[in-house]
């Protein structure tokens, strides 16, 4: 039962396979570990506009030539009593890049080689080749562990965070207890018990029955209490990946017609929760460089028919089949969304069909090399970026070499390369230009929705979910009324 004191119970949608700090970027693991047990050098402010904030690092400085110097907060201790020093930071990265375990955080440094120079106990220089302007931001994705941590997945994570794991009963629950010797401000929550229930109605019911205090993810169907249920932009963007090399979608008019054929507004408040926003970029509006001048394509079936006719007149075979591939359980009501999209395409004259597949098969269509098709495939997908910078999205989705890209455009490649290497205002401006270019000039894909998550929070708590709730649930952000 949920407690009537400072202990809380959180009911999550999926069990944790691992409680491993270097896997904290995996959302189900991050919700328990990130900043609760294990902390990062830096932290992105998702509640305000502070941008990148200090966490274990008090400050950082660009030393030039790809080198950044980080100053650690002095006197920080791990839950095993040892003191944090620069060697721990280096070891944490050694683990991430080790070939003896597969750490998820490594993917953020795919083409970047890092080297470390320990200046003193609380100072470390990190050099990236090629130079990485967002290295301090990338530091918000790597949790720091003690030097003694073995090169294998651990089951008893040691961290510097305000909580320590005191119990893990596989399949049932995880318990975190507050550390009295935490280096920072003491959070109000003294203990957190995490339970796992797959069924959203049960999670919502547990909060209603007083068995749990927070259900970070429920669905619109069960979110029926305005006093406890909150919607929040969850950093997921739903879109149709279009292959610009295939006929008939190689013709821009066909891509424009696809966009004009969709009545986006009709989905919201019906098959998608109220609060869902229309997307004009692959990333949510909280991301650097998001362009407010890019407009959502108007729903105009007559325009779509006209564009198809024009393309047909110029020799484009518009009768070629278009197969929409969508993933079962990708998000609530994904099947209904996909069926409606196919229906809208057919209403303007396309020959569209739907194929619902499970996750592994979906991946075959979503990532290169794409399987052959008679006409073309539109892959309905959901992309998550709550990291604050488009670098985590744009190369993969739009660069000629991008794993899930349907675009082959030199200007796009150039903009991505320049924006990725730029800093400050120039970086924001270049990303902004890229967003407008892929959306308006080359109509690279069919951007649809920025999705919302729904949380149920007990009335005894003072907590509002944020865009980060998909990836983390910081217990220190939870208060009591």
């Amino acid at each position: 039962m949920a407690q009537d004191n400072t202990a809380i119970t959180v009911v999550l949608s999926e069990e944790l396979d691992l409680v491993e700090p270097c896997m904290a970027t995996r959302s189900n693991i991050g919700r328990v570990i990130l900043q609760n047990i294990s902390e990062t050098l830096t932290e992105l402010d998702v509640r305000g506009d502070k941008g990148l904030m200090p966490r274990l690092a008090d400050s950082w400085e660009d030393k030039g030539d790809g080198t950044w110097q980080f100053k650690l907060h002095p006197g920080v201790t791990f839950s095993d009593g040892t003191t944090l020093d620069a060697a721990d930071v280096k070891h944490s990265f050694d683990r991430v890049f080790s070939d003896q375990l597969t750490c998820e955080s490594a993917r953020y440094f795919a083409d970047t080689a890092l080297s470390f120079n320990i200046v003193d106990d609380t100072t470390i220089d990190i050099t990236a080749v090629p130079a990485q302007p967002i290295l301090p931001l990338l530091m918000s994705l790597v949790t720091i562990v003690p030097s003694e941590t073995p090169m294998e997945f651990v089951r008893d994570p040691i961290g510097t965070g305000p909580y320590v794991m005191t119990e893990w009963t596989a399949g049932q629950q995880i318990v975190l207890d507050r550390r009295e010797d935490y280096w920072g401000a003491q959070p109000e929550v003294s203990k957190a018990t995490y339970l796992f229930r797959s069924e959203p109605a049960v999670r919502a019911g547990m909060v209603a029955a007083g068995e749990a205090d927070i259900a970070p993810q429920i669905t619109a169907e069960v979110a029926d209490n305005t006093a406890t249920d909150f919607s929040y932009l969850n950093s997921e963007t739903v879109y149709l990946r279009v292959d610009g090399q295939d006929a008939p979608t190689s013709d821009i008019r066909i891509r424009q017609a696809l966009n004009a054929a969709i009545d986006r507004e009709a989905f919201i408040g019906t098959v998608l929760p109220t609060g869902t926003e229309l997307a004009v970029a692959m990333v949510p509006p909280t991301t650097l460089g998001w362009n407010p001048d890019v407009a959502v394509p108007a729903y105009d079936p007559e325009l779509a028919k006209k564009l198809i006719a024009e393309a047909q007149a110029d020799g484009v075979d518009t009768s070629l089949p278009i197969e929409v591939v969508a993933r079962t359980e990708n998000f609530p009501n994904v099947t209904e969304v996909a069926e409606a999209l196919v229906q809208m395409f057919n209403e303007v004259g396309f020959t569209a069909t739907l194929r619902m597949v499970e996750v592994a098969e979906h991946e075959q269509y979503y990532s290169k090399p794409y399987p052959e098709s008679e006409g073309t495939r539109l892959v309905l997908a959901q992309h998550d970026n709550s990291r604050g910078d488009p670098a985590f999205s744009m190369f993969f989705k739009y660069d000629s070499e991008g794993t899930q890209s349907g675009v082959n455009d030199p200007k796009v490649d150039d903009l991505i390369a320049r924006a990725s290497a730029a800093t400050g205002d120039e970086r924001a401006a270049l990303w902004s230009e890229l967003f407008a270019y892929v959306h308006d000039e080359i109509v690279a894909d069919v951007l649809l929705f920025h999705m919302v998550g729904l949380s149920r929070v007990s009335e005894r708590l003072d907590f509002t979910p944020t865009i980060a709730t998909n990836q983390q649930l910081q217990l220190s952000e939870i208060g009591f009324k």
Partner: protein
Amino acid sequence: MIKLIGQRAIASVLSLLGLMVLVFFLSRLTGDPAVLFLPIDASEAMKAQFRALHGLDAPLIEQFGRYVLDLLQFDFGDSLRKARPAIDVVMEAYAWTLPLALITLCLVVVAAVVLGSLAAFNVGGFFDRMVSIVSLIGASAPDFWIAIVAIVLFSINLGWLPTSGVGTPLHWVLPIAVLFIRPFGLIVQVVRGSMLSALSAPYVKTARAKGVKNLPIIFIHTLRNAMLPVITVIGDQAAAMLNGAVIVETIFGFPGIGKLMIDSILQRDFNVVLAAIMVTAVAIFIMNMLIDVAYGLLDPRIRH
């Protein structure tokens, strides 16, 4: 009887070996675990490293050979997702499924035999009609819907029982109740039908003529002869329960084998899938053996 059990045991071992080969190769045909384990934007180098780390880059026949050698030492390998021995993961889950299945099965058998027999004895009467209606509802109502309604009614509205979980004996009430309904609905009908046939047999008339009371006629003279078809259905239902109850486990947060198996298949966690299927198969073979023994005990012609 001993010979019969021996024959069944040999057949079971051969079936297990066949199952092992089949599942190993079929699971490998379903896709690459590296794709599912790693994030979608993981580099090809990361995927290659993952395959190498878990021996998935070796030729399939070599992987199979290694797997068989390990199995001979009862080593099912590690779970890819949980980084723990797969057999440990499976046995932990089975430790929840087994009592859930056995308790439910016992309740189902007792209730179905008693109520089905009494219904047959009062054929056409009010009690018989009530049993028929309840059994039809039980056999056809969807588990999922019953479970959600039960939670809303007994946990949220009345507050009598916990919604889900496994902490106390009270946590078992709703999962067992929901799991009970369908097999009860099926078995009670079979008991009733079988008892109706048995009650019209000449030896029952003889017993009545001798003045034997109703209850002894039902539960001493008739039941044993009526139980053969019932045992078959009980065996089928028991096998299904030993496979885990995915719906019930999912809704009630019961950490059993059914949900583990589905999750592991979706995640391509091959070692867990194989371990789960082997453990479940052994349990089902044992159950079938017990059914065969029960047949033998009930019908001497089978023994001989």
